[in-house]
């Protein structure tokens, strides 16, 4: 099925490549996890144990770090990531209506992924483009001065 991500097999060579970039740096746990997140789109359980071994810490400690930071995901993500800004500037300019439109259109809540793995929805606290408020990002594209009806048109452009 399109977009289905298998959670069983983990490409250890890819993982070792990421680990080798930070060889000998014991402060690099977060950087390694960022590498894994970027490579796989999420952090699979197998990777956690492997990384814990490499850093000679318990898997629980890695898990503690993973669950502390918003950037990391423990389940597969959609092909496209929507980030709706909930920063102050966007809030006072009405970002909530946009967020609700996305949620309604895709039938998912913040943090969720659509069943077809087309979209994942996140909210962020300020994208640093407050002058475009209210803003949303899809992958690396910014959409500023948004209104709910524009949201629907934008979402249709992604596959």
């Amino acid at each position, binding site marked *: 099925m399109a977009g289905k991500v298998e959670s069983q097999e983990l490409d250890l060579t890819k993982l070792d490549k990421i680990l080798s970039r930070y060889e000998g740096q014991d402060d690099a746990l977060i950087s390694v996890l960022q590498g894994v997140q970027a490579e796989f789109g999420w952090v699979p359980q197998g990777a956690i144990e492997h990384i814990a071994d490499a850093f000679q810490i318990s898997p629980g400690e890695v898990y*503690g770090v993973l669950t502390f930071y918003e950037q990391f995901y423990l389940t597969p993500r959609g092909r496209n990531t929507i980030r709706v800004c*909930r*920063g*102050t500037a966007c809030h006072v300019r009405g970002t909530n209506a946009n967020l609700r439109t996305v949620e309604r259109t895709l039938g998912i809540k913040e943090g969720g992924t659509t069943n077809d793995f087309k979209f994942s929805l996140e909210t962020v606290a300020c994208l*640093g483009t407050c*002058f475009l408020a209210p803003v949303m990002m899809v992958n690396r594209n910014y959409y*500023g001065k948004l209104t709910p009806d524009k949201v629907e048109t934008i979402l249709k452009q992604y596959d």
Partner: protein
Amino acid sequence: MGKIRTADELDSLRQSIIEKLDPNKTCVRICMTGCRAYGAEEIRDAFDEEIKRKGLEDKVEIRETGCHGFCARAPVVVIDPQDIFYQQITADDVVDIVDKTLIEGDIVDRLVYVDPVTGGKIPFAHDVPFYKEQTKNVLRNCGIIDPTNISHYIARDGYAALSKVLTNMTPEQVIEAVERSGLRGRGGAGFPTGRKWRLARAAAGDTKYLVCNGDEGDPGAFMDRAVLEGDPHSVLEGMLIAAYAIGTKVGYVYVRAEYPIAVEHIKIAISQAEEVGLLGKNILGSKLSFEIRIKEGAGAFVCGEETALLMSIEGKRGMPRPRPPFPSESGLWGKPTNNNNVETYANITSIILNGADWYSRIGTETSKGTKIFALAGKTNNTGLVEVPIGIPVRKAIFDIGGGIPDGRKFKAVQMGGPSGGCVPEAHLDLPIDYGSLEAIGSIMGSGGMIVMDETTCAVDIARYFLSFTQSESCGKCTPCRFGSKVMLDTLTRITQGQGVEGDLELLESLAQQIKDTSLCQLGSTCPNPVLSTIKYFRDEYEAHIKEKRCPAAVCDALCSYYILPDKCQGCMICLRACPSEAIEGGKRMVHIINQGKCIKCGTCLSVCPARFSAVAKVSGEHVPTLEEPIPVSTVTKGG
């Protein structure tokens, strides 16, 4: 470019770069940072193509710069040497700009900035009020140079302060200069920078670290982003000077995860500086050796707090720990560590080059220098402004910010983000400095200024800030982990029309205790927005609680949407857009909203064409409704 081995070599390199520059050459400066969000890349491509087509490659330079500050007008370009300012342009405008301006030297009228007050056209950047009222010190290179080209930085006195320090000043003299300048940290707390450096220098031990805090978590502040993106070498140079003064060999720059361009630019800057020997061993032939590493944040606001930041750099959960010991005694891996904000470091070169006295003449008695503010929210000229500390709030919002859009009324400005408080109209003439703002329950903070107008609800905004801090609480200490949640739940109830007598007192008492007991300032400052809105807008809270009414018509549960019969043109746009099929109508019929079906999503309000403005959002009023749609022609149209 080869290695620069001595101060003299740096000088002659600078000379030769400047000589090669032709001040009369046409240069198109395109903001390629934030403006990318609005198509700056397409504009650059269009310029490249058009210039090649016209054979102007040798005559015109296309320069990708950092933020120009006037982000409200994104995307912006400025054309040198005339300093022509074009705003809100698209790739389609490029042909005209090349033909008319670059070739013929004329101005493309339609792209020129129009002063909203006088209605007059202002073609030159230096005449635009937004720029005229500013004092650019930290931002002096932002928008001017190509941040990915170290020559541009060097040409504008880059690394001259470092060279002065290494050849003519002892570390003690550097610290003294920073102390005398009166510079206070720009990360929020305003701690005197010179004193901090002195503590770190005095701390025992040979291994010490330097940290640059670029976490910039305050939603609505983007000055550190602009500096890192638009002039990264100024931060590196500030860090190098600090490293010399304090005696450290390794520095870290911690950049917020959501800032990919900042990460990219600071990485480029570091590798360029390494290449020419401005980072590395025996810099400019001196004893100073210094290397800088980058750490990217992973999404946690609390990591801006310095002890949490250090944990995060070490690769751990970013949870604050008690101070003392302060990082200057015991920081990274237990070693003395000096941490400053991005903007703090970026101030250093100007202090060294122009002298502490020059610096301390800017600003007020207790707050020296300039500060960058990020203007956002309900103001015309959103963007970055750098002004001397101490200018009145009014000047920032009205003279520079251009006032409130759509003829609305100013209500308050939130300073210091989720840790700060609001400045209401009554205090508009207050000078912006650390002490004055604190005295009225606000703070200077990192420089975010979110302007709110009459359509912003005080309770909703307090709830918003608290929902932010509550979700960013690290969870370590009881008052913040639980107390912020109780406050948030209470505020949520109030905005949903379920407020009860006693809620305000509960909020005030929780706020007081949470401030008093939290382990770090995330917790101890999170009640500030609530306390300050209660202080200045108590009647609004009471309207929500007692009358179940939201005076600003924001809180959805307390509002209704309805269509004004005398305005509706029966265009059916809202009817088609309504997700809940709550709107009845037909072509040329006055539409009506079935209140029972309406889910209060606000879509109809946003889609109804501005020239009709027929949808209203109201609170606490009886919503008059027609029984059924009637022809538009049967209604008398009001003014």
